[in-house]
């Protein structure tokens, strides 16, 4: 067990190195394990991030779909459907999205507004566990676990309150 100061120091160091990157591109593979389904659901695609608050999740498989989060708005495109909403209108979704976005932006204050944080590090590898503070969100999501190495995230695992879970594996791509 590490001293609290060291915990904070480690988290701050990760956050600072995150915040130092102006943009990033990664590919992802997401597996979802749902109680209603006999098999797991697989999807994959690209993630783009631009500091401080622009995040795109472009799903290529099984069906093309894109999700663009820019500041306070969320745009979903799926086939002919094109849908822009204010994130504020969907608070649960907003908090979930912000867990990843704020981590990528290295915005510790934003994370701490919505979650209690647990941080553990082992050399360059670290694990950040987010537990929702809001009861409504806690009824949906038990915990979000983000694993990373240095300034890169490698997996995001979401444990839902009903026992379902999803694991997103992220591999950075160096663009040109």
């Amino acid at each position, binding site marked *: 067990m590490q001293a609290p100061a060291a915990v904070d120091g480690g988290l701050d160091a990760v956050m600072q190195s995150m915040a130092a990157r102006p943009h990033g591109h990664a590919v992802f593979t*997401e597996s*979802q394990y*749902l*109680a*209603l*389904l*006999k*098999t797991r*659901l*697989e*999807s994959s695609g690209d993630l783009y991030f631009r500091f401080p608050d622009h995040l795109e*999740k472009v*799903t290529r498989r*099984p*069906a093309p*779909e894109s*999700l663009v989060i820019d*500041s*306070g*708005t969320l745009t*979903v495109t*799926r086939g002919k*459907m*094109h*849908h*822009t*909403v*204010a*994130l*504020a*209108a*969907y608070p*649960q*979704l907003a908090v*979930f999205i912000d867990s990843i976005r704020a981590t990528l932006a290295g915005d510790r204050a934003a994370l701490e507004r919505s979650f209690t944080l647990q941080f553990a590090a082992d050399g360059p590898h670290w694990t950040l566990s987010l537990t929702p503070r809001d009861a409504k969100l806690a009824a*949906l999501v038990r915990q979000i676990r983000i694993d990373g190495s240095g300034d890169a995230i490698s997996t995001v695992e979401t444990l839902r309150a009903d026992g*379902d879970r999803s694991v997103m594996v992220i591999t950075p791509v160096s663009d040109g």
Partner: protein
Amino acid sequence: MRSRILPLAVWALALAIAILLVCRARYTADLSAFLPALPSQQQQLLVEELKEGPAARVILVAISGADAARRAALSAGLVQRLQPNPLFRTVTNGAAGPTEADQRFLYTYRYLLSDRIDAGFFHVERLQATIRDNIDLLASPLGMLSKDLFARDPTGETLQVITQLDRPDGPRLADGVWVSPDGQRALLVAETAAAGSDTDGQQRAMLAIRAAFDALQPLAPATAPSPAILRLTGPAVFAVDARATIEKEAVRLSLLSSLLIAAFLLAVYRSVRVLALGMLPVASGALAGVAAVALGFSVVHGVTLGFGVTLIGESVDYSVYLFLQGQARAGGGRDQARWTADFWPTVRLGMLTSVVGFASLLPSSFPGLAQLGAYSIAGLVAAALVTRFVLPQLLPANLAIADVAPLGQLFLRVVAPLRRVRALAWLVPVVAAACLLTHRGELWNHELSALSPVPAEAQAFDARLRADLGTADVRTLVVVSAASAESALQTAEQVGAALQPLVDGGIIAGFDSPARYLPSLRTQRARQAALPDPADLKARFLAATAALPLHQERFDGFLEDVAAARQLPLATAQQLQGTTQAAGVDALLVQRGAAWQALVPLEAMHTGPSAYMIDTGRVEAALGGLRSSDATVIVLDLKRESDALYSSYLTQSVRLSLAGLGAILVLLTVALRSLVRTLRVVVPLALAVLVVISGFVVVGHAMTILNLVGLLLVVAIGSNYCLFFDREAGHRGDADGARTLGSLTVANASTVIGFGVLATSSVPVLSAVGLTVAPGAFLALLFGALLAGGTAAAPGSSHA
């Protein structure tokens, strides 16, 4: 003694009656003076839509200044404060998703609301495909929203009905609220509870918005870069502002022109008492005018009152003539009997000429114009009668007014050099004809908006905000009229089906319809009938999902919900209460008398070849096959229809004015018993009118119906001058002639002052009249003097 009291008693009684009528009259300052009331169905619809339609009750709100975060916070604060206010139906800024009431209604009624539900929906293959699609959706980010519903709604009908309600192309969102494309303005849309024609109700709603905004302001952090600015626009805002402007202008202009004319006349009369007496015909005329309108029309328009200003300009002339011409032939003092015998017939003929001219406005279908006609006729007759019968009784016997003969002589000296080249006046028709021919297409402005008292800047701001919101003006709509709400909804559904190919083909961007929010009972019943019974559904579900990776035993909720939907009481306006969709139905499905109307507003494309334009012909063609027995379907292009309507009134008014002109010619010919004398009176007026029209053409001002009214006034006022010139031609020119000319100069100066003030008005209808009459009246005097027969107007030359 008796003969002196009688006129005064009659006058006092008439005044009392007029005051009573004026006090009991109803006044309005909305824009309906410019909206014709005609019985044809299409026009009736047009007027109803402009006054009562959904577009008329929308207030657009823009917040600029400060910074983006502050604007977003103010936007949210406004919604929070105004949404519960009963003055508003809805106040939206884009932040709100479906409310809990919405979600409950959409979820409960999903199988009756979803467009996809028909007899084929539960076929095994289709059910399988739909559920497979929905599993794909679970894997997507949207799965966050649909996963919890999946066990009870494996086909995704809840998401389907929410998607059905989506606007295809909403405004831009930033910081969670609607903003302009450049992000510099936060935007909100408020729909008032009061109808668009309820100007007081609209004003209360506007005040509530401003009060809420002001109440939020003290919360601004001291670090804010600049203060946030609130601006409202929309038809209702225009109506409220226009009313305030017209009221303010009518008072300001009346006061200003009264003061200026009074100061001028005081300088001429050098007697406060005479000045006060001179105002009696003016005041009596104004009272009689309003009383006549109150008597003949259900409501008096503010513009008519504003027009009262113009009457000061003409009715003050009568007393000018009485005071200045009534002097004894020899020495000082008055000779009333001589004025009555010599001058009154001329004044009376001038008055009758004006009355005939204004009578041509009475049959106008434009309520504003008809009222102007009634006002002018009653006002002029009253002013003339008071001048003839009442004023002489009140004048002191030893009235002494400075002789205006020197003024007349001065005028003659100025005009004399021009008279030598007066043959050039015949060039006027030639030049004017050339002007009019080269600009003949641009003579008249055929757009109703030309009459709008809304400043061009405000109209441009309104257009910009509408473009920002992507809502655009509701300019084209399909109006379904039917005997019942159900029948109107059924037809609206057919209209929607017929319009869909136009949306898919990129002809229109989309349309709204009450049936989107509330399908007809027939449609709901058909969907209910398409839901399989529980045993059948279970068999179909098991077959459809056999090859899918589902735990089939966990979907009992789905079977229960479909079974419940089969028994649901059909959704009506009652079930909709409290939801966001209720506002849509309220606005688009309206009862008008015994009939029901479903309104289907069309949205123009924002890009491409048909951007911002709706091809009404194609819409009509698409709806061509729809001729239901108990409902009528009409495509209404509000701007096109109102312009066409205005244009037809313009044509009507021009015709009526020409008829009035003809009547004036007949009247003069009969009264003067000479065609030559008639021409001598009419030609200077015609020249003055031609010059004014050419002037407008040359400066590029397309004339409106109010310029036409101004031209009628030029004829009315100028005919007095020309009749006096004609009268003098029959007499030997002497000091009397110069005095008459002096009185005309004074009368003309007061007219030019009165209308000159009106020309400065910011209300187009008032300034148009001023800009026409001030130069026109002066030109009428000038041409009258130039063309006056031989010696009369030039006494100096007669002695030479």
